[in-house]
């Protein structure tokens, strides 16, 4: 049995960059290399642009719903960049930017947001699971994917995301426990953004931190400043490597903040003050990364321009995608329920087809 102290998280969330962008000395975790930080910065900019663009499309009535990760882009980016191509990412409904950072086609993520279908990309293509809505349920799927890979002797690691609220669900518990018992190579990455819709963290847990949940499963817990991309990357890199090396699962809690309402349908003025939100603008993950890269003169004008251009390309694609007529055919309703439709579904599909033909569709 592990010495229990090794399983507890560090006393404070790991931080490698102050909000000002100045670096923090850390005896064990070095700052990621500059080219990696540059790539991460690009992903942050794209992520922010995705959030802004989706928000605008919602306001224009072109998307049905959007849960923004504005302010959480360092978590989104870090989760995607810390894993290798053969690994898997398990995102939630809020992790659109993570899926895009992982390479999922931004237009394909619109399928869900436009209300065309429940999910729009092939999960096997980039090894990104469908964005999960029922909270914490996907964590168990992540364990299953990891366990299957481990049984086949593959070196796959699974990055499984969830929010602070989701840690209260029974499935969170069962997932961490199964992963630990089976030594499944999963990094559980909790974005603690202090809210579950309107419910603040204090109503979610009385624990010293969410990372302290690890020890109860024999899992090493760690916590990190979730608005510090350098720290997120450094910590996730270490935990992914540990999981890949056969060390079993890891739990990482990122301290961040949900800057916007839960979704466009939510009114956050009913449960929090602007004064609570304000300080978080000073902790913006983009500005912080930018300040560092500028200080290191790594962010050339040309590079900035290229990054901005990429972000605009993604946004433009989203706008085009949102306008495109991608309405699904009614017959699709019956096409994917079973590999072979049941006799009952065949009858029902015929009924609908008949109705539609009479309507003149």
């Amino acid at each position, binding site marked *: 049995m592990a010495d229990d102290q090794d399983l507890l998280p560090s006393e404070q969330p790991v931080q490698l960059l102050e909000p000002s962008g100045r670096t923090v000395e850390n005896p064990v975790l070095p700052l990621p290399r500059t080219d990696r930080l540059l790539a991460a910065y690009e992903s942050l900019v794209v992520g922010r642009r995705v959030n802004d663009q989706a928000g605008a499309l919602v306001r224009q009535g072109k998307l049905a719903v959007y849960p923004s990760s504005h302010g959480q882009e360092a978590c989104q980016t870090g989760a995607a960049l810390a894993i290798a191509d053969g690994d898997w990412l398990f995102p939630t409904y809020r992790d659109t930017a993570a899926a895009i950072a992982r390479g999922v086609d931004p237009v394909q993520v619109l399928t869900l947001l436009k209300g065309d279908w429940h999910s729009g990309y092939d999960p096997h293509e980039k090894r990104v699971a469908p964005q999960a809505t029922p909270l914490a349920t996907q964590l168990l799927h992540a364990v299953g994917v990891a366990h299957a890979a481990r049984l086949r002797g593959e070196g796959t690691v699974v990055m499984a995301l969830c929010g602070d609220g989701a840690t*209260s669900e029974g499935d969170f518990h069962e997932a961490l426990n199964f992963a630990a018992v089976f030594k499944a190579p999963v990094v559980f990455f909790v974005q603690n953004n202090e809210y579950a819709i309107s419910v603040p963290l204090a109503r979610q847990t009385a624990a010293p931190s969410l990372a302290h949940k690890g020890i109860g499963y024999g899992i090493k817990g760690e916590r990190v400043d979730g608005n510090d991309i350098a720290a997120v990357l450094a910590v996730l890199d270490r935990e992914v490597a540990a999981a890949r090396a056969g060390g079993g699962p890891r739990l990482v809690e990122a301290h961040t903040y949900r800057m916007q309402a839960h979704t466009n349908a939510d009114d956050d003025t009913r449960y929090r003050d602007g004064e609570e939100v304000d300080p978080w603008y000073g902790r913006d993950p983009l500005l912080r990364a930018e300040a560092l890269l500028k200080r290191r003169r790594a962010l050339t004008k040309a590079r900035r321009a290229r990054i901005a251009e990429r972000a605009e390309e993604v946004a433009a694609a989203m706008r085009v995608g949102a306008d495109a007529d991608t309405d699904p055919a009614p017959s699709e309703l*019956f096409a994917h329920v079973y590999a072979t439709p049941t006799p009952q579904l065949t009858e029902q599909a015929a009924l609908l087809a008949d109705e539609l033909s009479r309507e003149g569709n």
Partner: protein
Amino acid sequence: MAEGSTKISMAQALNRALRDAMTEDPTVYAFGEDVGPLGGVFRITDGITADFGEDRCFDTPLAESGIVGMAVGMAMNGMRPVVEMQFDAFAYPAFEQVISHVAKTRNRTRGKVTLPMVIRVPYAGGIGGVEHHCDSSEAYYAHTPGLTVLTPSNPADAYWMLREAIALPDPVVFMEPKKLYWGKDEVDLDTPAPGLGTASVIREGTDATLITYGPSVPTALEAAEAAAQEGRSLQVVDARSLVPFDDATVCEAVRSTGRAVVVAEASGFASVASEITARVTERCFHSLAAPVRRVTGFDIPYPPPKLERHQLPGVDRILDAVDDLQWEDQ
């Protein structure tokens, strides 16, 4: 609550019912996810925490089994919890608590432990919701002995049925058709409660009977209106209470017309609509001029927003079914 008749939405009616129950009975407590300061994602508990205090209406950690399980304990210990499941599909984590305890505790203890509690479930579709937000889950509960399953279709019923549900000494799964939350209607608070377990003939008619409940009630009424234009007189029965089921009212209605269509939004297979069809047929066989037809959701997962209209029983589909009731020999 102020007396007399007012025009309010179902959401407001539910809010008032909860407030009135909480005012009258200090053992009524409301809790769930986001029901406190936010007032619930559908605002059913709007302002209740502010007015009744944080002890009486409060947010819980995010765990539905926890919510229902804690309610069981509170009900064991003298309280009347009213809990909210945020959406239909998010009640599933509480399934074991509901089936193995909520439904069975009175029976387990030979009546020594009773569970006067209400589980409110906003359910069904028609609001453009994404996956997991539009399930019609009433059959799971209606199939489970020990549960009372109610579903109002208008503000007045919503008010009185929630009051009755809270007052009942037994657990109630209270299914709220979320697409009807915002429709306003007169609520006359001087009218006495309808009486738990009763169906209601909400439109008279002589040619055939539409038996329906919850989200499909307005559609059935519309269909009856359209049929009337075509010279066919349809009676409409709102079952309101799925368990207990009001056989007397429903069967009397069907016998009076000799033809029936059951209309429900849930997928049809092994559903409440199957039950109504089976029992009406068993009981009214010789009064029936044609088999009872069902108009239900297809046996598919609830569709994405862009396709949901095909899943919802619509006026045309209901009228097609009515046309199928073998009228030729009339």
